[in-house]
């Protein structure tokens, strides 16, 4: 309390704080509006206007989106796609990151820059060939097509982040293990991975939200409605309930819940993941 009083001693700070508070409120308005809308009926909003005390509060919109809107199908699909992609990409990138961080060989830099450059590509440049490739491999319109692509594409970012982190692990530990005759695969599994855990947690948290929130690849590589993840499903829901905004918004909120929970509980890792690459 004393600190707070101290902080607001200068009028300039009071002004800044007021500005910040108004700004933060504006930032929350869309989400608050979404929550309020999802609890009302569209008829009631149109008759009384949005800014009015709701006559009735209902969870019906969530139920409609979940049952008739198909979210009960789409949401599990999101996990079926996201979790294997996440596991595979973390596993493979921890392998490549170790090789690039800890071994000197001529192609090291070239391979490293290929991974880094690839992560910045506009997706459109991969869209058609990957679509063709999944078709060729018989993976079009299956979970696996999408899983393989996510695994592959995210390798760029994950390798970049993990490799940079692995370089900060003191070399003596590894040298000592090598001298003791420890095999490279054991050094990777029993020394490197445990030491890289903070970075793995950070990158994995971020990757979870990215893969889970993907929309473009889901609509390109999947056609069957019963395979669609929540993002693609929400677009379908929008077409199905064109003007029933409370149902659409309720669906959107359901679709946000998993990433929101991950963010709330793993916020520290999420933020670390975002900043891992930007400053040394």
């Amino acid at each position, binding site marked *: 309390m004393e600190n*707070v009083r101290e*902080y607001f001693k200068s009028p300039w700070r009071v002004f800044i*704080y007021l500005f*910040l508070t108004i*700004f*933060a409120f504006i930032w929350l*308005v*869309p*989400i608050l509006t*979404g929550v309020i*809308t999802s609890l009302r009926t569209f008829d009631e909003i149109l008759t009384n*206007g*949005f*800014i009015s005390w709701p006559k009735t509060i209902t969870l019906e919109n969530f139920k409609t989106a979940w049952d008739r809107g198909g979210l009960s199908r789409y949401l599990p699909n999101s996990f079926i796609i996201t979790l294997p992609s996440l596991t595979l990409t973390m596993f*493979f990138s921890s392998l*490549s990151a170790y*090789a690039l961080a*800890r071994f000197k*060989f001529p192609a090291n*830099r070239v*391979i490293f*820059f*290929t*991974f*880094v*450059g*690839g992560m*910045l*590509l*506009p*997706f*459109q440049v*991969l*869209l*058609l*060939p990957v679509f063709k*490739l999944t078709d060729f491999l018989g993976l079009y319109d299956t979970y696996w097509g999408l899983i393989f692509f996510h*695994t592959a594409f995210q390798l760029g970012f994950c390798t970049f982040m993990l490799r940079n982190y692995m370089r900060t692990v003191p070399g003596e530990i590894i040298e000592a293990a090598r001298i003791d005759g420890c095999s*490279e695969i054991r050094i*990777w599994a029993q020394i490197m991975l445990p030491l890289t855990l903070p970075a793995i947690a950070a990158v994995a948290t971020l990757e979870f939200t990215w893969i889970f929130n993907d*929309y*473009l690849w889901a609509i*390109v590589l999947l056609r069957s409605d019963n395979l669609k993840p929540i*993002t693609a499903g*929400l*677009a379908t829901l*929008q077409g199905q309930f064109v003007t029933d*905004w409370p149902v*659409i*918004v309720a*669906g*959107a909120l359901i*679709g946000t819940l998993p*990433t929101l929970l*991950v963010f709330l509980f793993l916020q520290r890792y*999420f*933020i670390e993941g975002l*900043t891992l690459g*930007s*400053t040394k």
Partner: protein
Amino acid sequence: MTRTRRDIIPFLFLIIPLIIYIVWVIAPMIYTFYLSLTNWNGLTTPEFIGFKNYQKLFNDKVFYISLKNNFKWLGAFITVPVILGLGLAMILNGTIPGEKLYKMTFYLPMVLAMVVSGLIWGWLYHPKGGLINTVIVATGLVEKGPGWLSNRDIVLWSIIIVAIWRQVGYVMVLYLAGLKSINPHLIEAATVDGASGWQTFWRIILPLLTPVTIIVLVISVIDSLRAFDLVSVMTRGGPANASSVLANFMYIESFNNYKMGYGAAIAVILFIISLGFIIIYLWRVMKDELEY
């Protein structure tokens, strides 16, 4: 252990990830260039037709609209979120009552899927029942609010606002990390020497943040070129292509009109525009490497 055996070890670690990456990312990227020179429609075998797709593209009105929209998006992205994000980072760096809650507020839009943001904002923009027009009409200044997503002159900006709403938190995170890495003694020394807060910001803090600013700008450019989800969910590029961007134009030509060779040509143009910025990013990474 023999020398050759030692040399082979890194490749044993690399082989599978590298093959996956080459098959799913590198080779497709190259193949797009070839596809852009064909008349592929998604079903038949692609036939080589030279630069015809590009000729058609450079005479296509929608291409120019999309290109211009991408640049408007880019212009908005390298200014508004960067200034707001830096400003917020400056305010929230250090201790401020309720700091965590404020940070979380600005992070929140980042966590939402673009599709979710697009849907929620689509409702905010609703011409009659939406919050924005309800508030505008309630002020009594106008009888009817604008059609945020149906008016050709403003539709693109309506969508860009949503993208900015998301982007500010990201920029703020990066600057917060940058500010943390600045040695507080430098700022103290400046203050002792009689520099005002404003001078300290321009002469010391901002120059020290240059590496972060470069990364922020490159990421902003890349993100603005990737823009697809919001446009796809909110307007599909309409009305009359007024909110079309290259990514969306490419998707529609390829997957709705089955002109995939043509779509590939659009993708190549997008790639060429991003290439410069990818190189700047790689150059930054390389610089860090050499200092390492």
